């Protein structure tokens, strides 16, 4: 049974339909990528899974449970945690406070568990440890992305949703972020990644879905899609 299974999901903004019935699934422990150009519906998909955007048709199953109508904060409790697009760091809170907001809903049983999770986050992002007292809003783009991912990890997600972690970052930082994403996945966290950076994302993911104007047009193992000539042309800029 897949951890996340989306069937025929349709989402609209008013009269405009952004997703025309997409279906996808994520197995436990997988790193799955959703690739698509601007306006393909990637972020809408994420928002629908997080519960911020209602579905007009279709269903979302998480761990065998129908969560189609579940409220957003309850989904966090269930273990679906998102690091939002454009980072969504609380600008007036320090890095530490941002991280502490991560476990707002999913409280820790004891201090030791909290400390262990925090140490794990700081191990992944040593930068955050250095900057823990700095205001979120004054961090660089890459650092804010780290805060967003770190904050999501503080919730100990069963399914981590990463919405364009490479957006607006320098190539060096992108490399670093993707390396960490792989690392998080390797320690057992299931990840659904949304990306425009096809090269990096595909080479690192188990499976991938190609999204075009609200529809899944292709899916398969990441490296296989990376070799697909049509995808090469459309997303990697090589003929």
């Amino acid at each position, binding site marked *: 049974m897949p951890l996340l299974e989306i069937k025929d999901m349709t989402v609209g903004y008013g009269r405009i339909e952004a997703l025309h019935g997409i279906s996808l699934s994520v197995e436990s422990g997988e790193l799955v990528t959703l690739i698509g150009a601007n306006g393909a519906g990637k972020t809408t998909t994420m928002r629908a899974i*997080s519960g*911020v955007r209602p579905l007009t048709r279709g269903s979302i199953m998480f761990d065998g449970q129908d969560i189609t109508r579940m*409220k*957003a*904060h309850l989904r*966090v*409790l269930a273990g679906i*945690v*998102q690091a*939002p697009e454009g980072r*969504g*760091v*609380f*600008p*007036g*809170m*320090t890095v*530490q*406070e941002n*991280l*502490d*907001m*991560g*476990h*707002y*809903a*999913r*409280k*820790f049983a004891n*201090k030791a568990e*909290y*400390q262990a999770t*925090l140490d794990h986050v700081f191990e992944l992002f040593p930068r955050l*440890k*250095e*900057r*823990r*007292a*700095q*205001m979120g809003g004054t961090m660089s783009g890459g650092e804010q992305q780290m805060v967003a991912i770190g*904050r999501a990890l503080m*919730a100990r997600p069963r399914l981590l949703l990463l919405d364009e972690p490479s957006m607006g970052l320098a190539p060096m930082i992108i490399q670093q972020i993707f390396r960490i994403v792989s690392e998080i996945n390797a320690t057992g966290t299931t990840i659904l990644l949304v990306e425009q950076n096809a090269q990096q994302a595909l080479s690192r993911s188990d499976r991938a879905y190609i999204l075009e104007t609200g529809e899944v047009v292709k899916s398969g193992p990441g490296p296989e899609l990376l070799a697909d000539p049509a995808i090469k042309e459309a997303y990697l800029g090589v003929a």
Partner: protein
Amino acid sequence: MSTPVKQTSATPLGRPHAGVGDRFRLWWNAQSRPAQWAFGVPFILFIALVPILNIPVLTTVGTNFGAVMAQFGMIALIAIGLNVVVGQAGLLDLGYVGFYAVGAYTVALLTSPDSPWNQTGEGNWLSQDWAWLAVLPVAVCITAISGLLLGSPTLRLRGDYLAIVTLGFGEIVRLLADNLGEITGGGRGLSQVAYPQLGQTEANPGGLFSAGNVAGRINSGVWWFWLSLVLIMVVLLFVGNLERSRVGRAWVAIREDEDAAEIMGVPTFKFKLWAFTIGAAIGGLSGALYAGQVQFVTPTNFNVINSVLFLCAVVLGGQGNKLGVILGAFIIVYLPNFFLGRTDLFGIPINGNEIANYRYLFFGLALMVLMIFRPQGLLPARQKLLTYGRQLYVAARRTAKRQHGDAGTGDQHGTTGAEEVSR
């Protein structure tokens, strides 16, 4: 590696360019609890005695100083309530005067002989002596419910839309009061509203809180001021505890970024509704005080311009800072009254009445100047110290001690967070 960690984590506390407010906050947090009481109690006593001491520089010429202070007390309560909504949760409420009106009218409707719902007469359930006090919690509850009723449909809106809807609410309440003549007395209003019956003497048949008690230094205004001071402290304790709780952290998160808060698992709608309801209840409390003090309510007292004035107090003083908004309330109430009836200032002849009449112009200008030079308000809130306040300081001091003893790694913020978790 460990050295830069120490340095960066020490900066927010020992930041060299910290403002006066932050330095004061640090100093205050550094004091032990008894020391805080030792400084705080005399200060509060001094504030309480200000209308009696009648300091020549402070006193007002055109109006009774006690009455001005009483008004200040009520507006301060309002500012604290509005600060919960605007400063803490970041919801722009332009119809706050509506809650003030609901509170005042609840008291008036239940206790004024002009009202068809008067409960103070012969054979009714409110005793003459305790009517005001008995109605006070009723007023607070009804206002809270009105906040809940207004909030549940409107808090799905954000930003400017919310501001417009609340603006409408303020006007609706006033227009209802004006047009439901059968019940509210319309433009004539409701008179002889109940007030606390205390200390009746022959010279002063209405008692200490009666509007007729105007003679001497300790007149009704001073008594109302003292009453509102007590209520302000109670409300401050309540609101302060809320701010430091999970509720307060949810509010800050919502104010900072509502989407991110939702995604972090904060039930944003629920907490916005909480902020709205609590804010409304405090506004209603102030309205009940007002109705009792003036013993008379009419719709004109609840014009929308008052909403703007309340908001002005909050923004001027510093959104999110409880002491700041009290200062803002003081400025808003005191300055116009200071000029009222004054004919010279430091030897320069002025027409104080004119200046007082143009108070909206001056407050508008003051706000514009403030937005340019000090957008965070006169006494701004330091969000970080607001949420963590004392723990942060205690943790830092512990680290400092440890560093004195030996060169520890200085993991103070980790402990801060852990303490937060364990609460």
